[in-house]
């Protein structure tokens, strides 16, 4: 068979074959088309060759058009990677502006409280001149009177004297001597949520104080009398 191919190419120049392909690509020039037609009339082998080429194309084109399998689109959509978070968040924000504002407020509030919680793991005590400090323990000595609220963080408090105000112990314990006296409330805060609750209450109290400043001034001045 390959010998025969050789013969064709030998007897009829590759030029004619090239014209055939130009014809099939619809790019043949007028003159060359005439030459091709003339040659095909004379040369049986080339005519067969040309016929076979056209038949080949017809056969390939006859292959019926096939369709994608069932559920093709659904299968792809299931396999697509998740939309980037950024996009999903943006779309959510567009659809729920009020919820977005509310949740933003909540996030900011919680995160500021959490960072406050994380920051103060060091012992600290509110500054009053007559409080002693020994090994993470604040001491209200016997016979002394501490004026104002006391807040102890990450440590204990031992009250032997008097306190005119509230005592709050965060992450610690209180020890009371029998002679001690606290005029205000005594609170121990140990858990994170209790602490949060304490903070929220405090924020709200501070807030109300802002609005009723004058009243508070009057109240504050009372103990001093």
């Amino acid at each position, binding site marked *: 068979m390959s010998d025969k191919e050789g013969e064709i190419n030998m007897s009829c120049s590759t030029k004619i074959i090239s014209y055939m*392909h130009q014809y099939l690509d619809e790019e043949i020039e007028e003159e060359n088309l005439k030459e091709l037609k003339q040659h095909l009339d004379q040369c049986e082998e080339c005519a067969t060759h040309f016929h076979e080429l056209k038949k080949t194309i017809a056969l390939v084109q006859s292959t019926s058009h096939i369709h994608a399998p069932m559920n093709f689109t659904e299968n792809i959509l299931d396999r697509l990677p998740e939309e980037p978070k950024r996009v999903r968040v943006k779309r959510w924000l567009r659809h729920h502006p009020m919820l977005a504002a509310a949740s933003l407020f909540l996030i900011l509030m919680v995160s500021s409280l959490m960072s406050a919680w994380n920051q103060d793991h060091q012992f600290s005590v509110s500054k009053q001149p007559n409080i002693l400090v020994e090994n993470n323990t604040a001491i209200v000595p016997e016979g002394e009177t501490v004026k104002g609220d006391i807040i102890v963080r990450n440590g204990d408090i031992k009250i032997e004297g008097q306190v005119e105000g509230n005592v709050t112990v965060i992450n610690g314990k209180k020890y009371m001597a029998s002679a001690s006296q606290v005029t205000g409330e005594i609170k121990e805060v140990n858990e994170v949520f209790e602490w949060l609750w304490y903070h929220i209450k405090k924020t709200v109290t501070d807030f109300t104080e802002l609005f009723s400043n004058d009243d508070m001034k009057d109240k504050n001045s009372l103990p001093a009398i």
Partner: protein
Amino acid sequence: MEALVKKRIQQVLKGDKNAFGDIIELYKDKVFQICYRMLGNRHEAEDIAQEAFIRAYVNIHRYNMEYKFSTWLYRIATNLCIDRIRKRKPDYYLDAEVPGTDGLNMYSQIPSEGKLPEEDVESMELQAMIQREISKLPEKYRAVIVLKYIEELSLNEISEILELPLGTVKTRIHRGREALRKQLRYV
């Protein structure tokens, strides 16, 4: 159609996954057909056609709106097909040379008194045979023949899809036609 496609692409770029579903619907048959004719069997064709759409989705930001979307999509599909053909193991390749048999088997299992006319069976067999011959072509000829005669694309489009000079595309089509002619001349 291009205008609609570009609108959908804008939506996909903004992150709308469902807009991409519309794009798949528009092109799934063409892409599947390219893959099927290139690879010769439905299973692999489905696999690669899906992969082509997924790649298009992931890389959608790289698509240049100045060009036809189909050109870009078909380029992804043909490149994946060519990669798959090159990665085939030799024994698997021999398997794949018997394409369309899943369709043929299905019909050949129908009893002779079945409803299918004899002509249809013959046509199925002829189709399978032609596909087998296409699958025998070296992949560089196969790609141009599939794009030209099955997808009926212009030489310019084929040159853009395959990122080849027009002259190279022509040469490959000529050689592909000659190779197929030798294979199909006694049909």
